[in-house]
């Protein structure tokens, strides 16, 4: 289930924690296997991670469902992770999310018909100073407006 390359990567993280505390590497392990499985987790992967880190499957599931980093439904090639917490919300994130939804003809949590983009509401990403903001891939986009969003979406195509 987990490729040898992924296992090697997970092992690096495991080695950073004391022996017997393999489970500390669960978040990184989930990130690694998710990336390998085109950005989405499933129950087989949860079991595989649990097995590899010697922890109960439900404990892995707890982590995988608590954090917004992990996807349990199919996602687009690009995931727009839109912050909707207090600072961004006060600066109009709700309107921008609606704008995105209308423009892409999707709801949050769904994928566009061409499979290119999906939108997701996430909790605070720690960039309150630049709110409203979103994360796409490894990149943060701050001080967003509708014009800026149009431009960003154009670039994604």
């Amino acid at each position, binding site marked *: 289930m987990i490729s040898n390359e992924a296992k090697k990567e997970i092992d690096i993280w495991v080695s950073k924690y004391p022996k017997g505390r393999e489970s500390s590497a669960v978040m990184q392990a989930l990130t690694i296997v998710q990336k390998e499985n085109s950005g989405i987790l499933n*129950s087989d992967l*949860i079991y595989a991670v649990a097995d590899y880190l010697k922890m*109960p*499957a*439900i*404990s892995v*599931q*707890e982590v995988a*469902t*608590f954090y917004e980093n992990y996807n349990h439904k199919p996602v687009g090639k690009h995931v727009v992770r839109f912050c909707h917490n207090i600072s961004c919300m006060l600066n109009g994130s709700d309107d921008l999310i609606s704008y995105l939804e209308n423009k892409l003809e999707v709801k949050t949590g769904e994928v566009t018909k061409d499979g290119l983009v999906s939108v997701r509401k996430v909790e605070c990403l720690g960039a309150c100073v630049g709110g409203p903001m979103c994360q796409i891939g490894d990149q943060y986009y701050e001080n967003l407006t509708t014009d800026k969003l149009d431009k960003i979406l154009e670039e994604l195509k």
Partner: protein
Amino acid sequence: MSEIEIEIDGNLVKAKQGDSIIKIADREGIEVPRFCYHKKLSVAANCRMCLVDVEGAPKAQPACSTPVANGMKVHTKNDKAKFAQKAVMEFLLINHPLDCPICDQGGECELQDVAMEYGSDVSKFNEGKRIVPDKGIGALIQTDMTRCIHCTRCVRFGAEVAGIVEMGGTGRGEGVKIEPFLTEGIQSELSGNMIDVCPVGALTSKPFRYEARTWQMNAVPSVARHDLVGSNIITQSYRGKVKRVVARDNDSINETWISDRDRFSYEGLSHESRALKPKVKIDGEWQEVEWQEALDFTIDGIKNNAKNPEQLGVLASKYSSLEEYFLMQKLARSFGSDNIDFRIDQSDLSDGGSLESSITLSEIESIDHALIVGSYTRLEQPMINHRIRKAVLNGASVNTINSKQFDFNFNTELDLLSAPQKILSTLHAILKSLHLKIGTDVPKYLSKVIPDDVHNKIADDLIASKNGVIVLGEHLNSNPSSSAITNLIFQIAQITDLKIANLMLSGNSHAAERVGFMPTKNGMNAISMFNENTRVFMLMDVDCDYDFINLQSAADCFNNEDVFVVSMSSFENESLHTNANVILPMASYYEASGTHINFDGLVQSFSASVKSPGDSKPGWKIIKVLADLLELEGFDYINSTQVKDEALQSSKLKSSFDDVNAEIDDSQITTHWQYAPYATDSVSRRAKALQESNIGMINSAFVSKSTAKRLDINGDDLYLGVPVSITDAVAEDYVFVHTNQARRVEGG
């Protein structure tokens, strides 16, 4: 820890440094509302219901996680505390459905009780309430997760007590759900305790669903009889039927927990196969008759068929009461027969009695090492296994010698796989290794034995242990050289100065041994009885489909035309109809008063919780009347207490060991038929929900790859009617049949 003084609600009380406020309050009888706090579980402090005012602290503090300090002044009922508690209550009730009238927890619900005290009668919350879809979690526990208040007691129970982390809190914030991963159903043998710890109606008993309201039921304290522990329980009955069994606290026995077997077996009592009327077989036809006629028929049968008293044989299962065992053996002995036995599932009866345990239940908690031989303790003796697990969590190590690798809920260091026919030689090697290491003389019969690394490691651990125990399990019962094995273990324990925990016995066997329900020197035992010298059998709670180690020889004997079989039984089935001549319907668990003797030798008596159904009668009364009709002396009992008192005056049979050294051909493939834990006694076998649970459905013949080849079977085949499972985790030249099916014999 030093003793300090604190003030709670104006009362000065003594406390230990580090204790939590709630612990002291509970001790003093001061009520603090709580949901997540449970005395046997870790402190989570996530429900916030136990907020109390601590003088000096700016905000109310959770009583469960605030340690006391000298001079601390705590108010549990002042305005600040009340305000905080009411606020928390309001939050907790936001999402809780108002379905108390159809909730099984209604009337015994902690949330309901606390809401009466602290809740408001009107909710300010106008938004939609959260709804949580239910995942099925098996046949035993009903989930209504919309009612869940996320106290996480069930999650912590799984992680800390059951040792199998099954429930968890997924999602976050408003979306948190308490659920298992996927829906395979709960695997734990202690799962029913989650129902008890759940403070709301989220987890309730599935077989009990909509059966009765808690205030309608008649609660009677009782004792569970399925294992050696004698867990303290409360039976709750409604209209003469046991509807539910819950745990009763007893720290030295079962703490707060009971096993699922003890909790859910009661369903078997109302099974359709209950024997309700006395029946006699005349010319091969079964006829329902009145008691008087059945008793006369029985007496005639006994007198006509037993030409001399020694032709009477008496057999019982391991689950009868002390009173029944005592009277039955007294009847047989007064009649003149010494052919008495309850060890019907053992294949080697050459020792005089079982090996005596030298450790108590609560002492098991503080052992530093355990060597488990022939036992899957987790499923077979769940509460004893729980104590071993506690010891392991405190640093004890465990080695096992089993024929298959078992899924214990604690870490074992070394699992030595040994087929039954090789256990003796394994123990010989360990004993020799011990002799060599300690420097004592090696007995002659061990001269050819060569211990390997594994034997040496086990020996080292035994020597290093100061306070260890050797556990003998029920898998040894069917071992043809079990006497020699117990003898060896006794020697090993002696030279290493370790304790013994004998779990080969089960149910109420200690009571049977105590009253001498075994032949003394002249009598025949449960194996030798099946010959042409026994013309009358009296069976007590014996199921001819399951219970005998050699079902065929028993059946052959019973079916003989001039053999008369009297069966006192709570249930009827096909084989009973074939084998018996008369069926005397007997009260089952919870239907008659009786006494259980547990692992510690503790004598626990219980009264009847309900009346036995139909015309069935308590076993001790049936035996008494039979004895009277046989004109035997000394059966003038008025109640079962008199029987008990007399029974306890008799002295216990002592174990005696012959120096047996049976030669065994260990190249043969052997089969070990091990009943799944819910197929051990006649009541559990008929408990529907138990049978439908994961543990109840255990039915596999485990065999290694090479042995499968020798037997010419593969993974799709059946072995003696049981699905084959090929695995590395089983000893060679051996088939471990773990099943809920009736025992079958090779070639039979």
